[in-house]
């Protein structure tokens, strides 16, 4: 699965500009699903037919990023946030813009202290090596989007890379589709690769309205709590995918949560129960669609989410595929 994840990490796709990721996923799923199409909002919908209740599995294609808001007279770029950037981790990041241009993020500092105080986005700027406004404008425009430069590294069973959120969820979805035994499918399943999750869980909301499933499961990442002196969260790398109980936006449907736990126990798949207080996933948007959708989530414990180097365990990813596959099959 590493190659698949690496391919996904390397694709450019900040919120609203997910085309490259879409194309990649389409090529991965050709011939493997009954129907693949793009919906009105831009989500990629892959349909695997089955009798039984309608299931929507969502993984979002977009990553966080930056957007150019100004180009000053010396060619420095000012940026705005796409999604929730960790501003303490922004300085020194290498940014890759949509047209291949690269830049480094620095910070205004009159005292020359080399310390990032007062982390307001307007104090950051990007240096793309342009020496004038005119030169910079040949390279980027106001509105050009950028991401943390992709940088995939695998160390034994762990992966370090930006955008594991949520390319890793996409990988789980793709691999599950590849592993599914058509004859055993007990749900009429729609795998929706959503757009614009990072800026308001948007693709999931419109897709859920259109498809209106009985059950919804999101595949995403969630904050691990196994680094030195960190906020206590009982989620560790390598102890299995997480089954969500509650996050910052929703409480999972007990039915979905219990069903997932049942499957995990039956198939001896390690799992962790997830209780976090901040952050949410596509499931949040699905839950309140029309008369309600029973929603839950399978997530991968990940360290340093929304930075240039997210870390997750391959074993958790493989187990997530296993869990989802066995949930969908009889």
């Amino acid at each position: 699965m590493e190659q698949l994840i690496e391919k996904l990490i390397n694709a450019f796709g900040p919120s609203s500009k997910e085309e490259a990721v879409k194309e990649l996923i389409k090529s991965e799923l050709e011939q493997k699903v009954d129907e693949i199409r793009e919906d009105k909002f831009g989500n990629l919908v892959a349909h695997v037919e089955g009798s039984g209740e309608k299931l929507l599995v969502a993984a979002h294609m977009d990553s966080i990023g930056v957007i150019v808001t100004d180009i000053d007279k010396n060619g420095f770029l000012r940026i705005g946030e796409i999604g929730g950037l960790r501003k303490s981790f922004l300085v020194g990041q290498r940014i890759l813009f949509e047209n291949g241009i690269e830049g480094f993020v620095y910070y205004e500092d009159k005292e020359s202290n080399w310390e990032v105080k007062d982390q307001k986005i307007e104090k950051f700027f990007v240096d793309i090596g342009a020496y004038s406004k005119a030169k910079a404008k040949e390279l980027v425009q106001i509105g050009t989007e950028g991401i943390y430069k992709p940088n995939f590294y695998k160390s034994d069973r762990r992966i370090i890379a930006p955008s594991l959120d949520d390319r890793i969820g996409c990988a789980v979805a793709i691999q599950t589709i590849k592993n599914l035994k058509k004859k055993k499918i007990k749900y009429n399943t729609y795998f929706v690769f959503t757009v614009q999750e990072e800026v308001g869980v948007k693709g999931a909301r419109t897709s859920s309205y259109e498809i209106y499933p009985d059950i919804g499961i999101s595949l995403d990442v969630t904050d691990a709590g196994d680094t030195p002196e960190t906020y206590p969260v009982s989620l560790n790398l390598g102890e299995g995918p997480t089954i969500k109980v509650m996050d910052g936006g929703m409480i999972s449907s007990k039915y979905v949560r219990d069903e997932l736990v049942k499957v995990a126990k039956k198939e001896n798949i390690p799992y962790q129960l997830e209780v976090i207080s901040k952050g949410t996933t596509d499931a949040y948007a699905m839950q309140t669609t029309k008369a309600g959708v029973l929603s839950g989530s399978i997530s991968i414990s990940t360290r340093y989410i929304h930075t240039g180097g997210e870390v997750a365990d391959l074993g958790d990813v493989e187990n997530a595929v296993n869990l989802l596959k066995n949930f969908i099959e009889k």
Partner: protein
Amino acid sequence: MENIELIQKLSNAFGVSGDEREIAEILREEIKGDVEKIKSDAMGNLIAMKGLDKSGFKVMLNAHMDEVGLIVTFIDEKGFLSFKKVGGIDDRVLLGKRVIVGESKIKGVIGAKAIHLQKKKDEVEKTVESDIMTIDIGAKNKEEAEKFAPLGSLVAFDTKFEKLNEKYYIGKAFDDRLGCSIVASLLKYSFNFPVIALFSTQEEIGLRGAITGAYQYTPDMSITVEGTISADIPEVKEHLKCSKIGQGPVITIKDRTLITDHKLREKLIYTAKRQNIPYQFKQVIAGGTDSSKIQLTKSGVRVLTVAVPVRYIHSPVSLFYQDDYENTLKLLYEFLNSLKEEYYGTVN
């Protein structure tokens, strides 16, 4: 200047979030001869439709009728009114201002302690918070105050629309009466497609009216016309000015609530270039508009936000420049006129 009377009427009218009736009335009068249907809904939105006989693609034009203001929350024994803010207002613009209170539109002032009486350095240099400010309507006591300004009365700034000099105008609520005026003007024309005008309510307190308005009358694409932040004043850094007076309509790429449709925006820019209309981008990611809610209606709507640059929005006196208004109107007219099926099909 085009529409000057309408803008004046709209700006001077009372329409704080929650009671936009007066604005709806003015707009209704203005557009009734130009449209085929006029409707309202449970949130007080005003919806107008034309071109219903035309097939296919529905375009929504949206502007919000409400303005920021205050609401009376408590009356003390002496007849002074305490208030909460309706919409986002910087406390520092409130001291010493004239206001209009309630359905009976009585006049009042937000009093400020005279500087002679401010003793410590602290008091002089510290912001007065709005929850200790009071409105004085000259009542003798609580009973008298309650008669004229019962609890829950909405309060608007008491600012008259006027010309500042050659082409500059000042008044209140240009956010978003300018948008309302532009949408009303656009309704005078016929385009190749059905047009739904949504004059929404409660935008300033959470973009609320647009949610139900767009649900009931769902378009395929929508343009929200706004009055947006222009902070091109001294002491503001170049990259934080957001937009500039005199540089034309402001096109939003991203704000705090949405990213606008890339293809439609490119088409809009193409139109501006072709028709030689100046334009600029909103250069600070701030604020949110109805378009972000319309965007998520049912299975999705493709949206744009275009605005007139306005200085000092959400304060008692704002300012705009005539050419910016006219260019915004012109840009939208030319854009709508040139819209063809191929530009508003699917995302593909």
